[in-house]
């Protein structure tokens, strides 16, 4: 037994030590650069939100709301109130979908009453160029602009017109997983954010935005 342990130590001490050193290096780099990366993401989110709600002049962050993520964990999520001259013109938040290569992070904007989707843009994705990354293209994104907040359905190309604004979203040919990820993210996150904002009394009957 002791001989086995000695043999194990002799053969693997370098690997274990190197793993510890590399882990430490990564932890330090992540701690040092992580906050700046998050700031960059927040700045990008606001920039994209301006494109989705062009009438908005300011995007005021609200207190984070509790949202169930795709993996089932509950985590705080940021919501921005889009304002023009003290008038609410919409709400902006982040949604995440399970893409082909990695998770897809979306910026989603809805109207002031949370009835219609104002649009979405892609915050980050690693989808295949010319296939999955067509979720960034205006052709696909335009189908969501004005669509009702409710259950969206992904349909095959040719079974519906992409220019019709309704709850049917025409998939991108050759990129079904990425198309599905966007629709699933909408269906998963929109009801949750709506419920949270209703609870806070920010939308719905008797809202006081």
């Amino acid at each position, binding site marked *: 037994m002791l001989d086995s342990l000695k043999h194990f130590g002799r053969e693997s001490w370098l690997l274990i030590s190197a793993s510890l050193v*590399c882990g430490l290096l990564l932890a330090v780099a992540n701690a040092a650069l992580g906050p700046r990366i998050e700031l960059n993401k927040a700045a990008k989110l606001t920039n994209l939100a301006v494109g989705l709600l062009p009438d908005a002049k300011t995007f005021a962050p609200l207190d984070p709301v509790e949202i169930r993520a795709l993996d089932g964990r509950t985590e705080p999520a940021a919501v921005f109130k889009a304002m023009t001259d003290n008038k609410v013109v919409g709400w902006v938040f982040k949604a995440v979908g399970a893409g082909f290569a990695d998770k897809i992070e979306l910026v989603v904007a809805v109207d002031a009453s949370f009835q219609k989707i104002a649009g979405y843009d892609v915050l980050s994705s690693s989808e295949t160029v010319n296939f999955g990354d067509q979720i960034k293209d205006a052709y696909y994104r335009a189908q969501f602009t004005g669509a009702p907040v409710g259950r969206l359905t992904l349909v095959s190309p040719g079974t519906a017109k992409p220019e019709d604004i309704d709850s049917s979203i025409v998939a991108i040919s050759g990129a079904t997983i990425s198309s599905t990820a966007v629709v699933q993210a909408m269906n998963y996150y929109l009801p949750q954010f709506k419920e949270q904002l209703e609870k806070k009394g920010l939308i719905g009957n008797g809202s006081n935005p």
Partner: protein
Amino acid sequence: MAATLDGQTGEYREVVATGLWREMPVFRMLLGTCPTLAVTAAVKPALTMGLCVIFVLVCSNLMVSLMRKALRPHVRILLFTLTIATFVTIADLFLRAFQPRMSEVLGPYVPLIIVNCVIIWRAEARASNSGVLVSIVDGLAMGAGFTIALCILASIREILGTGHLFEIQVLPKAFPPWAAMGLPVGAFLTYGFVLGFINFLKRKRA
């Protein structure tokens, strides 16, 4: 003493010449072809990729060189991969923090440096059996050779594809940009023509 210094200088000169020409990864060894084709549509991303590769090469060579006397054959590749992955992740985090726009342009190609065979090749061929200083110089020279090759290809493609270099207009506005140069076909054609030109020069010198 003087002879030793001369010998050392000669060794470093040899290492530099190997990285910059004799075993230049992209044009002489045809290694690291994936980023060579993927990120050379413009000079800025090509230069950024080159700098990231230099950083990873120098750091991984340094670390492998420090560990070389304790390396055991069965964990060798595992240790190389661990080391390379660590420094690639640090480079990726740095880009996302300080060059977020460039990080987006390069996309998955920065994390993919982990599988760039130039780096594991230098860890195996140089750092695992050389001293620290030689390994660092080797990383710098090989990285510089890789970066120069990327910048040459990117310059040709950016000029012909857009009429610009570093986003500055260099061709007359009457020149119609060759859009194909920004696409994969342009990458393959440019790489092929430059390789052909280098082979032509080599034969002429021989």
